[in-house]
């Protein structure tokens, strides 16, 4: 009977384990459980060993350390790839979108410039040019605004994820304490469900921040993030936080606070999970895209400003800047000495790169590091001009001071239209040539341009100067004369076909041979309402090299191509990572997952065992009854 009873107990245990498995078929992280039963020590009799029934030794979970660790790891990498890919595809979406991209706004603006050059005195064309210029700046602002909004959303998501990691870490620490208290390490029965819960929590942590888990001999699980910063040790959890990056204070960096001590998570690359993916997006996509857009905005805006400033507006005045160009962003490290400050200015907009720079001062030398190329150069003194920016000290630095310089960071967000009056468009050139009325030679105007390179009219640009030719035999020379005083400014200058005659900041070329005594006078362009020479030059800025990459269009195409590549790469990586994840999940489930058909069989098996054991008890009882009946009958 006791044998039957042990069988009954074993079958009951089996049934409840099966029941547990069936109930938890959809519980995340649940490992199916099995009862382990062994035949109990048999009794020796003269006729041999007679069984005494069955013992349920333990209930164990079917579990593979290796597969669980693999699943955890792929969860981390897959979440990182997924977060990164989702973010990049958004940027990709609006950079290439045919209605919101920069190309369409640039094209419309230059079409309007062409319209002004076709009809420079038409107020409507000028107004259209200003309106399309406004659209262009708004497009820059919008694109940058979208990037910034996405950056802010990514930041919020990082902060949310960080607090989630902290909650999960606390829970792991609590579970560690409970598991420790069961004393399972010292041989008592394993707390299967607690272990499963802890594995599930750990998998969630991996999905958020990556990290590694190490099973300790006392049964607790230690969790490390980044390159070895402890998040959970035993029953203590530390706190994950975000702090400004030491290398580049404009960026966020993860840190772990243990007992009030903050440890930086050294490199962003070592962080996985959603947070890792978002950090990678911030560093690899968001900042470079913002910088690159800024590079185009500053390059294009400055080139148009410079050309407009060399022209003459509708009121006959020197052209003014059409756009307001934002200044470089300088961020000081929080630990810098008091008052230390840099003054950074743009000296050559077309040489600007999309890089950020770090300036370190060690007390003697200044080290400037290009953060995207990771190259550095040393200076013993400032100011220095590098890549189109001039770096100067505006307030003395102390050893150990560090600054991050982002020359183009605010370019796209800050560019604005400076001109509001259509007459501010300088369609005309400030100088005009007048051909002497008694000239007999064939010489005609080739071109008359204002020397580029300055940001305003050269001095005396409009002072009239007469060019007088002298032909003697095959030798042609010219004198430059002040027509009002007849004072000779320079004489006997050699002239041959195509010679450029320069004075007061203008350059003149003639076509055809001048005759002896011919004069050409360069003077102010008064009343030249139909003059479109500078408008043509403004239109030419479209094809001109305005950034270190090339024209505005080329630079933007490069950016779109780069982001498109990254998005494609991220998307295929995300797909392959998610395949890996489902493979690991399948592998883990094939060992630890519940199969209902299997449990149905088990249910049947234990039910029958239970019935059989009951039967054996019943049989024993019948036997017992019949023996008792013997006595009953005799009495």
């Amino acid at each position, binding site marked *: 009977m006791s044998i039957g009873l042990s069988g009954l107990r074993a079958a009951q245990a089996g049934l409840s384990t099966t029941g547990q498995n069936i109930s938890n078929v959809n519980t995340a992280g649940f490992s199916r459980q099995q009862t382990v039963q062994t035949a109990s020590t048999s009794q020796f009799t003269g006729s041999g060993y007679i069984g005494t029934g069955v013992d349920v030794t333990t209930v164990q979970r079917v579990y593979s350390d290796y597969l669980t660790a693999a699943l955890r790891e792929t969860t981390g990498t897959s979440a990182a790839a997924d977060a990164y890919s989702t973010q990049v*595809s958004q940027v*990709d*979406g609006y*950079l*290439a*979108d045919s209605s919101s*991209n920069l*190309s369409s706004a640039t*094209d419309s603006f*230059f*079409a309007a410039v*062409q319209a002004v*050059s*076709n*009809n420079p*005195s*038409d107020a409507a064309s000028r107004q259209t040019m200003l309106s399309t210029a406004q659209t262009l700046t708004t497009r820059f602002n919008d694109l940058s605004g979208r990037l910034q909004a996405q950056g802010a959303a990514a930041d919020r998501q990082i902060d949310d994820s960080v607090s989630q990691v902290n909650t999960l870490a606390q829970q792991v620490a609590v579970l560690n304490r409970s598991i420790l208290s069961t004393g399972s390490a010292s041989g008592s029965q394993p707390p299967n469900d607690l272990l499963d819960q802890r594995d599930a929590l750990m998998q969630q942590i991996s999905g958020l921040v990556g990290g590694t888990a190490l099973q300790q001999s006392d049964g607790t699980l230690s969790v490390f993030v980044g390159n070895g910063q402890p998040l959970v040790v035993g029953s203590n959890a530390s706190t994950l936080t975000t702090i400004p990056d030491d290398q580049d204070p404009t960026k966020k960096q993860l840190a772990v606070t243990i007992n009030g001590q903050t440890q930086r998570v050294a490199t962003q690359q070592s962080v996985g999970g959603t947070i890792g993916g978002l950090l990678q997006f911030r560093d690899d996509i968001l900042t470079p895209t913002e910088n690159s857009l800024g590079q185009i905005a500053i390059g294009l805006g400055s080139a148009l400003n410079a050309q407009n400033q060399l022209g003459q507006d509708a009121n006959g005045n020197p052209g003014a800047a059409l756009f307001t160009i934002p200044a470089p962003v300088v961020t000081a490290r929080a630990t810098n000495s008091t008052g230390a400050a840099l003054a950074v200015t743009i000296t050559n907009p077309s040489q600007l790169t999309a890089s950020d720079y770090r300036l370190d001062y060690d007390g003697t030398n200044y080290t400037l590091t290009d953060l995207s190329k990771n190259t550095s150069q040393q200076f013993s003194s400032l100011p220095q001009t590098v890549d189109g920016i001039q770096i100067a000290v505006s307030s003395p630095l102390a050893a150990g001071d560090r600054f991050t310089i982002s020359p183009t960071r605010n370019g796209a967000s800050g560019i604005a239209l400076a001109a509001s009056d259509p007459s501010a468009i300088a369609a005309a050139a400030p100088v*005009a*040539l*007048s*051909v002497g*009325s*008694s*000239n*007999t030679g064939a010489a005609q105007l080739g071109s008359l341009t204002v020397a580029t390179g300055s940001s305003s009219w050269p001095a005396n640009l409009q002072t009239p100067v007469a060019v007088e030719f002298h032909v003697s035999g095959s030798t042609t020379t010219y004198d430059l004369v002040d027509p009002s005083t007849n004072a000779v400014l320079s004489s006997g200058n050699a002239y041959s076909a195509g010679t450029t005659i320069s004075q007061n900041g203008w350059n003149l070329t003639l076509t055809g041979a001048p005759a*002896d005594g011919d004069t050409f006078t360069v003077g102010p*362009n008064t*009343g*030249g*309402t*139909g003059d*479109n*020479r500078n408008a*043509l030059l403004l239109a030419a800025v*479209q*094809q001109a090299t305005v950034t270190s990459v090339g024209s505005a*269009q080329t630079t*933007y*195409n*490069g950016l*779109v*191509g780069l982001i*498109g590549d990254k*998005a*494609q790469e991220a998307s295929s990586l995300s797909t392959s990572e998610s395949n890996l994840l*489902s493979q690991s*999940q*399948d592998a883990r*489930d*094939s*060992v*630890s*997952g*519940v*199969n*209902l*058909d*299997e449990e*149905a*069989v088990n249910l049947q098996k234990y039910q029958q065992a239970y019935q059989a054991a009951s039967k054996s008890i019943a049989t024993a009882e019948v036997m017992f009854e019949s023996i008792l009946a013997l006595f009953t009958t005799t009495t």
Partner: protein
Amino acid sequence: MRIATTTLYDRGLAAINVAQDNLAISQEQVSTGKRVNTASDDPIAATEILRTTSSLANNTQYIANQAAATQQLGTTDSTLGQVTDLLQSVRTTLVSANNGSLSDSDRASLSTNLKGQLDSLVALANTQDGDGHYLFAGYHTSTTPFANNGTSVTYAGDDGTRSIQVSATRQIAISANGADVFNRIAQGNGVFTTAAAAANTGGGIIDTGTVADPSALTGHTYDVAFTVANGATTYQVTDTTTNTAVGSATPFTAGSTIAVAGMQFDISGSPADGDHFTIAPAGKQSMFQTLQNAINLLAQPTTAAGATAKLATGLASAVSNIDNALDNTSSVRATVGVRENELTALGTSANATDTDGQARLSTLQDTDYAKSVADLTKDQASLSAAEKVFATINAKSLFDYL
């Protein structure tokens, strides 16, 4: 391999998700008609699309600019055509005026007629384009370029020539300034002018002359002075620039050629004693001035001694100046015509560029409908297959039989 029950559900769901994802992509391609909807669909094609779209936009602008240039040049061309007609009619009038049978009053009426022609010429020179801009004012397109104050016509424009960007590499001049068209016209035969002195009393008539030897030209001014003594007429040529006599006094034969420093000219008729003729390097004179001079000349009565000869000399020089004006107008018109031809060629090439660009863009971004619709059908089939499989596999459980 052992399969967990959740694996069956997960796999079924994953298969449906993949099928739906593919279906969504095919659907987008079919409904937008575009193969590349974001740069990541095909990064290389995406940048190429941006480049092509932008160059097409530029090309469209160039086509519009070409139309503007063609219109402007067309207006210039037809105006210059009218100028030519007018000058030809002026020339006819001047030739007909050189007729001894005409009376002073006949000439006065011709003079009035020419005054009308002058007004027409000024009106033509002040032609405006469709936008109200003066065609022949250089850059001063808002200022009336030519004004007739009764004695002369003044120019208020400048020497500027407006250009328009008509292709990526070509700017074409769309205007001819008034100074080049109307004002700077060579006088006489283009090299030198001949004139009779105002005080001449004889019947000597000088022609416009020709250049015999270009290498001998000096660019100096010469005076031919006649002396009639004892029935013999002689002339003395003097270089008035250097004030030196050229050769010695020579007997005069009417109609014989006189050659000086590479130039040669005829003096016909009978010059009186003390008559002078001046040979000077040709300057530039506006066609308005030529016309005004002719008007003044024809208004003069021919009663005074030598007046008929002066009239003939003046008319000859006027005709020659008008011929020069005609030449100049033709040559400006020819350059305008060349530019119009060039614009036609550029237009053809711009239209071809447009067609090519559209074709390129279509290849780059347009959906291959046959393929996409086939894909769509295939994706639909695989979605319903995935759903069917999911339903079948999960329909049965061992528990059904317990």
